């Protein structure tokens, strides 16, 4: 399997991954989108060294995954795959910030490690929510939500059109790559010159295809703007979803919930 095919497969799999019979499926995509953005904003607003405060927010992605029947494994795999980006930058923190900030018994933990930990937690939270968004709502629905949220139609129709043809183009690309691999034997990887050649052919075919699609569109009356028919209607449940979760996020941001929970439990125990 070429890399292209693997990537395609995972895209296909993630799009509207859960079509389970849960109420999440009927949730207005605008509600999902707004809540997700609120979540990300709140998570990224936490201080550099604030690990504890972040923890309650785990409940959001976990609940969504559970309700929407999204497999933890699929999200987890993607998280691991993208983690190098955050790790590579974040790992400098322990290198540059050596001041011991925290003592657990005899062990001193530097500020750098604390902030690195915070970065990784933020990473897990923000990335999983972004992935869950598409998995639960589906890309097309999100695009409809964008139109309703006043994003320029030209841009949204570009998103939809491009997405539709990614599979086609990637399919063509993967065929060429496969043909190359089958004739490459011991040589690993692709020379730049070969790459340029493959890409150029692909580009030419793309341009031809664009022309043919245009012909097809025009023969069905296309005059410049793609007609849209969908009407999204927000239900009270959707509004409640956004408000309740946002309230929870703000609460978690303003008050150190785990600390309270800890105090509470310890009071109870003693």
């Amino acid at each position, binding site marked *: 399997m070429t890399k292209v095919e693997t990537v395609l497969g995972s895209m296909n799999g993630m799009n509207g991954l859960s079509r389970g019979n849960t109420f999440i499926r009927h949730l207005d995509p605008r509600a999902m989108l707004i809540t997700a953005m609120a979540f990300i904003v709140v998570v990224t607003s936490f201080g550099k060294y604030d690990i504890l405060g972040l923890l309650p927010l785990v409940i959001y992605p976990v609940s969504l995954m559970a309700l929407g029947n999204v497999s933890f494994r699929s999200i987890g795999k993607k998280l691991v795959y993208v983690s190098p980006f955050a790790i590579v930058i974040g790992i400098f923190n322990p290198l540059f910030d050596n001041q011991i900030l925290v003592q657990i018994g005899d062990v001193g933990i530097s500020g750098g490690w604390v902030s690195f930990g915070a970065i990784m937690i933020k990473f897990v939270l923000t990335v999983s929510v972004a992935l869950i968004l598409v998995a639960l709502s589906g890309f097309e629905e999100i695009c409809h939500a964008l139109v309703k949220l006043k994003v320029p139609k030209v841009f949204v129709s570009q998103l939809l059109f491009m997405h539709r043809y990614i599979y086609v183009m990637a399919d063509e690309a993967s065929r060429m790559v496969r043909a190359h691999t089958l004739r490459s034997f011991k040589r690993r990887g692709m020379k730049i010159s070969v790459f340029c050649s493959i890409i150029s052919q692909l580009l030419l075919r793309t341009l031809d295809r664009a022309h043919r699609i245009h012909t*097809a569109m025009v023969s*069905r009356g296309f005059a410049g703007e793609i007609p849209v028919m969908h009407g999204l209607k927000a239900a009270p449940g959707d509004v409640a979803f956004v408000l309740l979760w946002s309230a929870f996020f703000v609460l978690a941001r303003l008050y150190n919930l785990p600390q309270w929970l800890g105090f509470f439990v310890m009071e109870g125990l003693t």
Partner: protein
Amino acid sequence: MSHHIVEAHDLEYTYPDGTRALYGVSFRITHGESVGLVGANGAGKSTLLQHLSGCLFPVSGTVHIGDFPLTKRNVDDVRRHVGMIFQDPDDQLFMPSVFEDVAFGPLNLGMPPQEVEKRVMDALAVVGATHLANRPPYKISGGEKRAVAIATVLSMAPDILVLDEPSSGLDPRSRRQLIDLLKAFTHTKIIATHDLDLVMDLCERTMVISSGRIVADGPTMEIFSDETLLTDNHLEKPLRMQGV
């Protein structure tokens, strides 16, 4: 009734890069006729078909659809009556879902949403693809794509169907389903294809095109019995006629 007539008169066409494609093509197809268009690769089949829906305009000569000569000004009106189905269904299914693709034509024609919905569901029912309505086009099989591509055109209620290689890439069963479907249509049909057995099943009349010229135009059986004509045009007898 008369807008079912398709007439070409001395069509000439040259591509922008200078290659001449059509040299004085003339024919007249009447209401309800089913005509096959066969010929070697590069003979000009696709080019000719594109002239019939106003995708290309001749350098000289005229095309008449019904009573109207096809000009750049009345192209939109004419397109309501001519439904063109392309060789690669991926080129024709460009909306996020099957439903939206089939709705594209009627919406562009300015129909109200309820009417559009009815047309879409009717068209999908005719081709047997109702269950695919909410699927994205990249998630359906080749045969299903063909069926949906036909639906995208049917929803505009054309009088004339123009098809470019409709059976290529189809497995035998899908192909048979396609032939049965097309047989049931009473539209005027013009089918460009290499599939000579399909032509035998569907078209009582056949035109042979070679290097931009119509070299034969007559009853299908006659054409397919003329071995010299067939060989000259990179063709063979239909499979079912071979070995006789």
